[in-house]
């Protein structure tokens, strides 16, 4: 069923690109949720012939964590911090799309000479995961809001997840590490949300008479 994997890889990259091109936080979160959902299906595609309990556990867990939990937290955060939904990217959307395209090119160019060993999966896994990572990275670079940067980071993390999945049975350990990263991200997000509130608190105290902390200047 490698074709499904191919499709999901391509879609993942495409969605990452759209996130890069979106300028409404809500939209970004939704797209991200979609992407995570897509990726969480990959383990199932992976052994479509004989789906093991572990696969289901993995995909289910991922789905819950990434496609449901994280977006919810983010929505909650937006609501609590009366944050303008408009984002002014430091690089214009058009430019950032072009950069994104360039990054995709780089990713594919890099992975020209690299073939996955062992039981061959789709050859798209490496370039796509790289591309997703770089796009996420690009999102972090171009957006000025803490929350959107978190989104970018989540996209990176999705890229990694995609790659980890493909190594699934080659290296069982790595999955656990990926999950650790997820936990890390969760804590990370909590930290941000807390800090957001904390920052609001400080600002009402008037100690921070500077630009919005969210713009992390």
């Amino acid at each position, binding site marked *: 069923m490698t074709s499904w994997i191919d499709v999901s890889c391509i879609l993942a990259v495409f969605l990452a690109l759209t996130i890069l091109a979106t300028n409404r936080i809500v939209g970004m979160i939704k797209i991200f949720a979609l992407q995570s959902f897509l990726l969480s299906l990959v383990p199932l595609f992976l052994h479509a012939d004989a789906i093991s309990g572990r696969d289901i556990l993995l995909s289910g867990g991922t789905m819950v964590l990434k496609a449901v939990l994280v977006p919810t937290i983010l929505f909650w955060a937006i609501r609590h911090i009366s944050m303008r939904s408009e984002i002014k990217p*430091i690089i214009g959307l058009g430019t950032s799309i072009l950069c994104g395209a360039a990054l995709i090119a780089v990713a594919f160019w890099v992975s020209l000479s690299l073939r996955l060993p062992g039981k061959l999966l789709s050859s798209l896994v490496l370039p796509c995961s790289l591309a997703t990572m*770089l796009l996420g990275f690009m999102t972090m670079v171009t957006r000025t809001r803490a929350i959107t940067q978190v989104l970018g980071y989540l996209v990176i993390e999705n890229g990694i997840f995609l790659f980890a999945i493909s190594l699934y049975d080659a290296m069982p350990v790595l999955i656990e590490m990926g999950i650790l990263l997820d936990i890390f991200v969760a804590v990370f997000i909590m930290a941000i949300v807390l800090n957001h509130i904390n920052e609001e608190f400080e600002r009402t105290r008037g100690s921070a008479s500077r630009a919005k902390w969210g713009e992390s200047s």
Partner: protein
Amino acid sequence: MEKILLGSWAVPFGEFSFKLDPLSLVFLIAITTLILCAGVYGFGYMRPYRGKKPLGMHAFFYLILALALVLIVTANNVILFLGAWEVMTLSTFFLIIFNDEKSPVRKAGFIYLIASHCATFFLFLMFFLMAHAAGSMDFDVMARSDFSPALAGTIFLLSLIGFGVKAGFLPTHIWLPYAHPEAPSHISAVLSGIVIKMGIYGICRVLWIMRVLPNWCGYVLLMIGVLSGIMGVLYALGQHELKKLLAYHSIENIGIIALGLGAGLLGRSHQVPFLAVLGFGGGLLHVLNHALFKGLLFLGAGSVIQKTHSGEMDHLGGLAKTLPVTSVLFMVGALSICGLPLFNGFIGEFIIYFGLFQGLLGLPLHGVIFCSLGILSLALMGALALACFSKVYGTIFLGKPRTGLKGSSHASLKEAGDLSGKSTAQESACREETSKWMLIPMMVLAGLCVWIGLVPRTVTGFTFFGGAYLAHVDLSTIPLEQVLMPLTMVIRMAFLFLALILGLIMIRRLLLGKAPMPIRETWSCGFAQVSSRFQYTSASFARLIVELMKNALLLRRHGGQVAGVFPGKTQLSSSVHDASEEMIFGPGLAFLNDFSKKLGHSRIRYTQIYLMYILLFLIFLLVWKLK
């Protein structure tokens, strides 16, 4: 005594070993003498600070400095040398910023620290190149190995930069005129007498290690000597502040030393051993002499400043009456630094001159040209130094006090205005000399100056030995009598001269008889209301020379315009500015500062930019490494 190994000591990186060779010996003599005298002087000089300042720390760093100096000249190992070098730099720094509440003092200390530290890094480079070529970190092993001409030249240049900063060669001398005036006087004496000589020592050491150097090295060293010497004394002429003037004179004398060493190097590379020995020997002798008389002068300046709380020459005057003994001692120093007969300065310069004349008769054409250049510049330096010190002595010790100074032993303006040459009450009230602690060391130094001037053979032995050691020739093969005989003649003439002076004084006594001389006021061509402000100031004294050189000295004049039929009060002041500071280092540092400030302001105010750097770096690596 080719060299005495004083022993060695194992450390992480190889072994520290000490040795004492003729070269070290000369410097060791200078160090011990001046450190002792200045130390004793320090007792008296620091007395007013007792209780107000941590004098213990001062003394501590002074002793550390002494230790470091001895270590430097006896080190036989690169690491030990560099270590001692750093310790010297630091302890000197702490000694300089004794009065750290004054911002000029801090500035001076900072500039000193920066300059020497940057220079030290050049030394690292140089010594590692050496060690790399020689395959050892020990000097005597290095000396046994031979270097390719290109490498030798590079090392030589590096040493000129690295040691030149400490020695105060132009144009890397800028720290010197800052540090010397701000430090306590006995420290300035040590600074100028010994610390800058360590730069000379380093260069000598390199010359000794590099048995074979390209011919151009000699010329370069000679030219540096000429440049530093002449510019140094010219800047000195332009100064109004006593200790700053003395500082510039140290640059001049360093120039003379470099001239001698350069001549010696010429002789060595052209196989004229006599010239080599004379040049090196003369240079080393001048090292010793300069340590003595410059130390003496700085100590004298110290007593003047302690008495009058001012080093501004144009405010002083007539101190010969207030400080009779100091004035005589200062006179001795002045005579020696001008290289006048009967005093040690003359002996050193005589030997260098002699060597240069030998070069004149013995070298190929370009050698002749450079030697005659050397002779001429020596002559010019001599004449200018004479002008400069007649100015210093005349303005400070002679004539009448120009202004009344706060807490000073001077007639106030009004009293200075009155024409009776008799000292005012205020003056006579506090007409006492400086303390014994300060006088005795100065006397010792002055005595040594005269001693070397009248019995030079006592030291020329050492210095010529050192010279031969540097020239890598056997002293017995050198026709040394050719220069020692003239020296003896010079001494005989000196004694004849003294005898004649005695005789003339006798005659004068005879003619004048016992009757007391009538004392009148100075004849001022019938002009009545002469105030002591009418006297020639140091600036006006030096004016003719300074204006001749005004382009080289960046002379600036402020005010002085008279307007209208009945012009009101106007004032004219002129100042001389250091070209290498104004044109090279100042702008350079300013540029660096602005650059970094700009970056600092445009410093990434968004986290995104941080991330972008990382992304770009990642992509750069990917593209660069995964072709």
